[in-house]
């Protein structure tokens, strides 16, 4: 039976190898189409043929096949001078636009191919240091404490993923940071003694707010009356006699009264203010109801409860309560938003919200009616309403009370300490030193992911402990030292996969001999000063190309079960394996196809996979751009911090839901559902969604939502916080959906400036992009897609018209609203009339999307750039997924089952 079951697995594997061989037989080549030779001949050879070689540049013998760094460098320079307009010289005949566009297009594309070929690491996986988040997770797994390693250098990698071993450097400051963080984690983990009791603190803020507002009301009134008295004198008396500095001071107080007085009166006269806090917008920011956890309560998990209600007559979009941290220096009304809940209770039937919170450095928590996180924006909204009604916007939410209870401790002492003091507390042990040795050894093994540390290493660790003891340090402090050192050792910080598996004896042997590491490669001799540009180019390659082929023949071997478990766990959890996975690996069972499949499924179903989903998607889709800009709160008041967070989570939640339900990857392009919560539903104008949990909802008739292209997060990324950017959006679609990334924006292209200050529609600007071949080569492909998405504004809301502005300096001198014209065509010519058709056209390109997704997945999982030798793997992932209706889960499954994932190279 077992054998029978395995057959289907074997079959595609065989196919895969055939494909791989087929791919390898034809290594990718970067060849500039030969028809361009005529252009070079006509326009360049006069000066740059083999005889003239003006400026040391000979294009006649320059190979049209780019196979070395030197050739790439020369073509790069040709591209550069064409782009900058430096060549052909001004007084020579210019290349005609169409020819030039095609030449630039081919040349830049081929240079990209050449760079990819030349930088291809031939599948070699560079040993990975734990990146910042893996490090945090691994520390948590080891000692049970969540630390924030935000001071470690950022591992964000503009070239790829934060799992890419080659890009994960190690600087000398880092070592000391690791040591300090480990000490911090261990100190926090060493909790013993009596279980701290749970305490509750409750706050009813009206007792503070009402007197304060009452005072303000009285003062505003008094100042206004004084001003009126002075006014009554008709300027006969000096303002000073009425307590003002001068007339402008009088006006100032009158203005304050006009702006604020009525809103305080209304606040205090609203009956609900007697029994609770109204979350109003006021002139000086929003009302935030706060609670502070006393400083002597321990750090940990707590529960925040609040009895709340929505006031009658308030708008549904206002009925969201934000909670967050009131940090030091937070200005009135500002909050570091953590989350957002819809309020469904009413004054007659309030509801009690329960929100889990983590108490660490920050002890002040606040609740606020949802709004842009900027006092200026709140003031603007206040004033806008105040002008109309005289009192500012009414409150939508009411809070009866807030309370915090905790710490919430499920077990005591916490399991973390048991992981370290595995036999119980040291004072109960017969011999502390022996126990110390055992603790060190056990901890090191776990830290090194079940790899035995060498005896001499353990001995040195013990000495650290023993010396501290000799100095009179107590046991828990003394034992912390070696444990922290373990957490700063390479065995912990790197995913070590030796080239060959060493037998245990040989490890011991080597430890005894303690060989020094190999000599560093000698620095290249500083080359003598070269004369011509050509020669300098030749020196640009540090190593000859032959060496790279030599490197690629480095032997590879199959991972053992434990190594596979570690790779798998960091891929799907960004954490070390759990007990179950270790056990299976130790029994040598993990590689059995059935077992591996079951484990992958189990791991994907585990909440720890959420991190994989979020961090992978974030990097794959380039979502760091979402944090590049502050969205203009006046222009996009609804795109506040809560919506931005929810919009980001929508992307992750959608992929999570697809994994859970085995949905096809193509659901990201044109599905009939969205995965949203109450807040996003409100933002999208979709009714009937309740709760802050993300849920699958059918798209109502007439809504343009559905798929990545219509997600607020993706659309907002394609803007600069103020205006939507057809170029950004178009380039993103080319890169992420169509697997056809435009070449990097070229350097030295002259900027278009003659149109500045004119009242032009984006379309007209696009036309200008097409005038210059340097621009047209890419923009003719990118821009039309972006224009197809113009019906979404910078914050991803639908619009039919776009407002053009003509400015002179900062002043807007002319405004005009024009109808959006979304029609266009994809790079392959497929036409579309509007966004919906564009989305349909793109959904047809699911194959391209699947390729890009697979490549990203390979890169993330293997921790190295996608290479040409990975094409076979990519195709197999796609075909295996296709057999399961394109299921997103099958891509992951195919990758994990592949030889590459299971091989150290």
């Amino acid at each position, binding site marked *: 039976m077992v054998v029978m079951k395995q057959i289907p697995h074997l079959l595609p594997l065989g196919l895969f190898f055939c494909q791989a061989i087929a791919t390898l037989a034809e290594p990718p080549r970067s060849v500039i189409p030969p028809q361009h030779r005529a252009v070079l001949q006509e326009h360049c050879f006069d000066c740059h043929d083999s005889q003239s070689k003006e400026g040391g540049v000979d294009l006649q013998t320059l190979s049209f096949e780019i196979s070395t*760094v030197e050739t790439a*460098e020369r073509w*790069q320079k040709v591209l550069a001078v064409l782009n900058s307009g430096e060549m052909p010289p001004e007084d020579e005949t210019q290349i005609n636009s169409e020819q030039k566009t095609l030449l630039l297009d081919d040349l830049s594309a081929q240079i990209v191919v050449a*760079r990819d070929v*030349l*930088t291809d*690491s031939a599948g*070699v996986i560079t040993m990975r240091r734990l990146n910042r988040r893996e490090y945090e997770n691994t520390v948590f797994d080891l000692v049970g404490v969540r630390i924030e390693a935000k001071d470690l250098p*950022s591992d964000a990698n*503009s*070239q790829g993923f934060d799992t890419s*071993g080659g890009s994960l*450097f*190690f*600087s*000398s400051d880092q070592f000391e940071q690791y040591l300090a963080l480990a000490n911090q984690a261990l100190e926090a983990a060493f909790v013993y003694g009596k279980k701290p009791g749970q305490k509750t603190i409750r706050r009813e803020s009206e007792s503070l707010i009402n007197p304060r507002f009452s005072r303000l009301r009285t003062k505003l009134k008094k100042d206004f009356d004084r001003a009126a008295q002075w006014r009554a004198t008709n300027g006969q008396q000096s303002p000073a006699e009425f307590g003002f500095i001068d007339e402008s001071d009088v006006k100032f107080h009158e203005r304050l009264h006009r702006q604020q007085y009525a809103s305080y009166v209304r606040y205090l006269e609203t009956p609900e203010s007697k029994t609770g806090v109204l979350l109003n917008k006021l002139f000086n920011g929003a009302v935030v109801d706060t609670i502070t956890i006393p400083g002597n309560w321990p750090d940990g998990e707590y529960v925040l409860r609040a009895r709340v209600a929505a006031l009658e007559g308030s708008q549904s979009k206002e009925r969201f309560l934000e909670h967050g941290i009131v940090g030091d220096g937070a200005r009135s009304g500002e909050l570091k938003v953590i989350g957002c809940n819809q309020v469904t209770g009413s004054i007659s039937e309030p509801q009690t919200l329960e929100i889990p919170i983590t108490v660490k450095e920050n002890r002040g928590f606040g609740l606020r009616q949802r709004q842009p996180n900027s006092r200026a924006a709140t003031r603007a909204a206040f004033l806008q309403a105040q002008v109309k009604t005289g009192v500012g916007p009414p409150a939508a939410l009411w809070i009866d009370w807030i309370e915090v209870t905790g710490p919430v401790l499920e077990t005591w002492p916490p399991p973390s300490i048991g992981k370290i003091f595995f036999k119980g507390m040291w004072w109960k042990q017969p011999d502390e030193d022996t126990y110390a040795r055992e603790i060190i050894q056990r901890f090191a093994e776990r830290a090194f992911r079940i790899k035995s540390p*060498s005896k001499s*290493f353990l001995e*040195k660790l013990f000495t*650290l402990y023993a*010396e501290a003891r000799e*100095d009179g340090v107590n046991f828990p402090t003394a034992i912390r030292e*070696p444990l922290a*050192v373990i957490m*700063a*050792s*390479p*065995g912990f910080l*790197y995913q*070590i*996969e*030796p*080239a*060959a598996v060493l037998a245990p004896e040989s490890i011991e042997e*080597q430890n005894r001999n*303690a060989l*020094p*590491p190999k*000599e*560093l490669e000698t620095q290249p001799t500083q*080359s*003598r*000063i070269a004369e011509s*540009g050509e020669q*300098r*180019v030749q020196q*640009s390659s*540090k*190593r000859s*190309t032959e060496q790279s082929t030599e*490197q690629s023949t480095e032997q590879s071997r199959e991972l053992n079960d434990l190594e596979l478990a570690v790779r798998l766990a960091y891929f799907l959890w960004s954490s070390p394996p759990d007990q179950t996975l270790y056990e299976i690996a130790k029994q040598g069972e993990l590689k059995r196809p059935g077992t591996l499949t079951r484990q992958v499924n189990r791991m994907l179903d585990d909440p720890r996979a959420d991190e994989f989903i979020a961090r992978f998607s974030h990097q794959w889709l380039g979502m760091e751009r979402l944090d590049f800009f*502050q969205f203009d709160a006046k222009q996009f008041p609804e795109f506040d911090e809560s919506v931005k967070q929810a919009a980001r989570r929508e992307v992750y939640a959608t992929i999570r839901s697809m994994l859970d339900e085995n949905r096809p990857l193509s659901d990201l392009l044109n599905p009939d559902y969205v995965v949203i919560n109450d807040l996003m539903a409100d933002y999208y104008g979709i009714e009937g969604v309740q709760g802050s949990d993300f849920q699958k909802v059918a798209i109502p008739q007439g809504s343009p939502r559905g798929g990545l292209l219509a997600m607020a997060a993706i659309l907002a990324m394609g803007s*600069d916080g103020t205006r939507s950017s057809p170029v950004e959006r178009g380039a993103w679609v080319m890169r992420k959906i169509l697997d056809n990334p435009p070449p990097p924006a070229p*350097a*030295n292209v002259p*900027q*278009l400036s003659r149109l*500045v*200050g004119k009242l032009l529609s984006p379309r007209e600007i696009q036309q200008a992009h097409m005038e210059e071949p340097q621009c047209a080569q890419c923009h003719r492909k990118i821009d039309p897609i972006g224009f197809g998405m113009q019906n979404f504004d910078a914050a991803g809301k639908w619009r039919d018209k776009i407002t053009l502005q003509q400015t002179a300096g900062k002043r807007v001198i002319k405004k005009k609203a024009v109808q959006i014209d979304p029609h266009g065509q994809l790079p392959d010519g497929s036409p579309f009339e509007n966004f919906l058709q564009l989305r349909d056209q793109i959904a047809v390109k699911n194959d391209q999307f699947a390729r890009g997704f697979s490549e990203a997945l390979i890169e993330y999982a293997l921790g190295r750039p996608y290479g040409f030798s990975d094409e076979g793997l990519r195709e197999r992932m796609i075909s295996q997924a296709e057999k399961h209706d394109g299921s997103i889960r099958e891509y992951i499954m195919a990758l994990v089952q592949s030889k590459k994932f299971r091989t*150290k190279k």
Partner: protein
Amino acid sequence: MNKPSQKQSNHGRRSFLRSSSAVVALPFLESLGFRKHAAAAEPAVAPKRLVFLGMGFGVTRDTWFPNIKQTGSDYELSEGLQPLADHKQDLTVIQNLSNQFSTEAHWGSTFWLTGANRYAEPGQSFYNSVSADQVAAESLGRDTRFTSIQLGHKGPDKSGHGPGLSLAWNRQGKPIAALNTPVAAFHRLFSDDDTPLAERQAALRKKRSVLDTVLENARSVGRGLTQTDTDKLDEYFQSIREIEIRLAKEEDWLDVPKTRPQQSPKAPDEGLEGFEEVKVMYDLILAAMQVDASRVFTYRQPLDTFITSLGATITAHNMSHYSDGARKEVSQMRDKKQSELLARFIGKLKATPDVGDTTLFDNCTVTLGSNINSIHYLTNCPTVVTGGGTGIQHGRQLVMQDANTPLCNLWLSLLNASGVKTESHGDSTGQIDELFG
């Protein structure tokens, strides 16, 4: 592969250091045996000092560069450089320098001081080489408490610097970390530990045992790794080696309290951001020079928060893609503020006495610039050099005849003129003799 000598086990760590870093650390190793100057005894000849200020995204093209036709002393300062008018006689603007391998239009600092070709190594998508400041530090940094000081800003790079942790790259072409806030820089440079000497000595010993221990583990995990992984692990070894060297220096300096200049800068505020942050960093560089804490400084400056602090509401990236209008105004405002801060720094350098009759200004060389010219342009890198440390004949605009003169020619010239004998740097083709008259 070398066989270990029998004596290895006796001085494991030291001999390991020696054997594995023959090329790299030789200049440093000399410093291990080096005994510091008594802190009070001033050197008879003022030391040379080098400061590199990297600004990220480029400048406003038509208003920052002086008219390229006006060369020599007969040139007018541009609008963007106008705030430097008081010091016009003491600075040099150089045009037509660039790094020939630059292709990344958003990387203003990655290769600025190295001139490397990102694609130089087949099979690797990123390569870099040693930066000019680190070459300088190998000799200029020997006699000071800190071999070199790297300053930076916090948060991810939104300022157009590109990959890297500071402007500095070590001999292996790996990034060197920076002190990213004025507070961190202040404490590193000036805060002393109050613990008694004996305790600090004990702490040093402990640090050494810790390094010894992790090296033990590094050696055992290093067995049987692939070539690529061995190279990777070497970063770890290298970092331990650097700490070793630092500890050796620390030991040398253990009984010398960190000094602060008489008019000592105050401990900076935590939340300092934008131009105020740059200003304080300049003050800290100045103070560090005053007490000779280090002679080589690099500063990768914040730009995103810089323009925000000037009232802009756009990002630095957005600014860098200016066209006529609001974005260009921000870019110009930034140019001016930057020049103003540099002018203030120069003023202070001139007002601070150094050895003999000289001032700090006389003995240092400060370069402000970026690998990015403006927008996406990568040729003619904006470059201003000031300070009397290298004997440059200031008061001129120098326009290089070859429009693609390697920026590394400037670094090579500054190195040699600062007494750091160097034959070539990066892709240099020779020194810029015109600098010196």
